[in-house]
């Protein structure tokens, strides 16, 4: 009769919850700070996560050895279901981890949902903390408060095929304007190749064009964000980018539906002469048709010799507000996110460290990382830090805008005006 009991429980639960307003979770923040027990950690699953798991295991044993009576339970969660996982964790403290890895673009939404604890004082008091690259640390801040330790950064640059460029006797583009011209020239000479592989859903590939022209996604006015994608500068950048999505360089029928991974995929398959790729794509390109036949340079800016501002992607390590073991959780974050383990993570996974001194060492020792570090040092930018951005992202506002232009359905002015309106509505609510 267990079934009956459960059904009764369901009915009772339903009655108990049935007020005249939608259900809400109570506050999940915890006042406890236990010094023993199990520490639950969520890290992202990756296709070849073996090396990552090795490094994390080392960190866990080191941590457990230093803290008697503490066990660390690491769970690898899938990036594609992270939204559901985190939302659920914020509403049910029992399911929530103590420490979690998460993408920096998700931060503002998570903070608004009350998910993560303010680590400002902990980071300030941390010996490694002072060497954190300030630009990267900014991506862990909402309204001036720090909610995580940057674990690694992802930076994009221009990948090009050295064999194709040598054959045609051309040099990599020196300015942003040169990119389209170079792409057209290559495709005219080699119609089987995409001049440059970019995509209508590749927001982070487009943003450097927008920023290089002096535009931005949004501006903060009196505590509220207002979209600026319809400004003259932003429009110029978007026009420059969508100029690439044409039959003479990257035909919309092939490219308009592509995001970043698909764009790089075409380059890997040997079907593109250039692409915008990340340092995290390098290993995959090295095991592809383009291996040994490509080089990387920073994406050029508006004038020769300058570098277009790149998007500062990356992941953070944070401590949930619902944790019962705040001190332990912070200590674990400082261990796994500290210099020693960031270096190990770089060796294992190629994840670029977030400490300025480590970055410079990497650039000096591994020339192949130099274009990325140079891009990082030239100044990176970020998406608007507001929960509204998560909505803009989920609703695909910018990809839709790019695809409208690429498919010829709308001109840049109409598409950007529509996108600005949608962004404002997302920021407003």
């Amino acid at each position, binding site marked *: 009769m267990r*079934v009956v009991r459960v*059904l009764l429980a*369901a*009915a009772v*639960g*339903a009655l108990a*919850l*049935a007020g*005249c*307003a*939608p*259900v*809400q*979770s*109570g*506050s*999940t923040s915890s006042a406890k700070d236990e010094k023993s027990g199990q520490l639950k950690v969520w890290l992202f699953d990756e296709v070849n996560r073996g090396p990552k798991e090795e490094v994390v295991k080392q960190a866990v044993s080191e941590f457990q050895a230093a803290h008697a009576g503490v066990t660390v339970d690491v769970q690898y969660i899938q990036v594609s279901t992270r*939204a559901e996982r985190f*939302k659920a964790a*914020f*509403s049910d403290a029992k399911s929530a981890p103590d420490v979690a890895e998460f993408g920096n673009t998700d931060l503002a*939404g998570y903070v*608004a*949902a*009350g*998910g993560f604890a303010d680590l400002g004082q902990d980071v300030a008091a941390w010996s490694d903390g002072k060497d954190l690259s300030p630009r990267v640390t900014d991506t862990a801040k909402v309204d001036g408060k720090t909610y995580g330790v940057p674990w690694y950064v992802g930076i994009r640059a221009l990948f090009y095929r050295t064999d194709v460029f040598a054959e045609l006797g051309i040099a990599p583009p020196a300015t942003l304007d040169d990119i389209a011209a170079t792409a057209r020239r290559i495709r005219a000479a080699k119609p089987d190749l995409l001049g440059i592989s970019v995509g*209508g*859903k590749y927001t982070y590939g487009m943003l450097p064009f927008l920023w290089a022209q002096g535009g931005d996604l949004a501006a903060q006015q009196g505590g509220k964000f207002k979209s600026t994608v319809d400004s003259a500068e932003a429009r110029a950048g978007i026009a420059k980018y969508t100029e690439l999505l044409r039959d003479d360089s990257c035909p*919309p*029928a*092939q490219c*308009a*539906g592509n995001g970043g991974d698909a764009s790089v995929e075409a380059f890997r398959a040997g*079907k593109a002469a250039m692409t915008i790729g990340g340092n995290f794509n390098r290993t995959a390109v090295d095991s592809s048709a383009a291996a040994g036949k490509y080089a990387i340079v920073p994406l050029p800016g508006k004038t020769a010799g300058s570098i277009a501002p790149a998007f500062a992607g990356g992941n953070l390590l944070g401590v949930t507000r619902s944790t019962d073991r705040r001190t332990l959780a912070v200590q674990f974050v400082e261990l796994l996110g500290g210099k020693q383990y960031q270096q190990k993570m770089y060796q294992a996974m190629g994840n670029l460290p977030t400490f300025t001194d480590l970055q410079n060492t990497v650039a000096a020792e591994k020339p192949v990382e130099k274009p990325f570090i140079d891009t990082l040092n030239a100044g990176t930018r970020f998406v608007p830090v507001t*929960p509204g951005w*998560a*909505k803009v992202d*989920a*609703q*695909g506002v910018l990809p*839709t805008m790019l*695809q*409208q232009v*690429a*498919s010829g*359905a709308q001109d840049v002015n109409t598409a950007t005006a529509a996108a600005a309106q949608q962004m404002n509505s*997302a920021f407003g*609510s």
Partner: protein
Amino acid sequence: MAFAYLAPTLLVLAGLLGYPIYQLVLISLYDYNQEQVSGNAPLNFLGLGNYQKLLSDKQFWTVLAQTVGFAAVCVAGTLLVGTALAVLATRVRAVPRTLLFLAALGAWATPAVAGSTIWLFLFDANFGLVNEVLSGIGLHGMAGFSWTYGQWTAFGLVAAQVIWCSFPFVMVTLYAGIRAIPGEVVEAAALDGASTTRIARSVILPLLRPLLLVVTIQSIIWDFKIFTQIYVMTNGGGIAGRNLVLNVYAYQQAFAASEYGLGASIGVVTTVLLLAITVVYLRVLKRSGEVL
């Protein structure tokens, strides 16, 4: 007595569907985002605000029209193919029939994500077999042709996939239905000199009506709420969202963006629409003498 038999079911349905549906309607009247769900922000009663926002969105109406058209094509296609093959199956011997059923059951059993992925793979612009074959037989323009780029080719491709995985239900049900018609009924009509089409129309069809009712209503409900196939095959709604259908639209605009209030209002509107369609359908049947 009836109540004793129904009690466990009613309890489950009231608790696990009735209550959430009641909540759904409530939520649709509030500004209910992730902040509110996790209790980090106060609730804000909007009244019909979410509905107003939804109904004044031009894109919603476009998407709604697309959904109705797309679902209509899928339902018609599914019923047509399913019925035709069910009739065909009654005319052939066991071996070909078993082959057909095995193939159909396979298509039915394939998870939606897997089925969509395979179709996408077959119709891939560069690596797909279909383009390879088409350009091989002389249609050179088809090499590298993207099926998912154009609005109509994309919708057509998805509709074909949907029909592929949903006709088996109709076929198997109707085949069983035809088989269950006593042979004497058909023979008697044939002896009276009725033609084959006449037998089909005035003897078999009326007997199959109750079954057709079930498969039609179920198909309408399933196809109107299609999600996976569109989401996977058009990469989340096609270029600039021109292949969006209602459920994918709801997912992108509301659920993925954590706007549950708006999402709930879309859910309510969907339900009301489906109910209206079903009621109209039942009315039409009733006029021709059918009762539930």
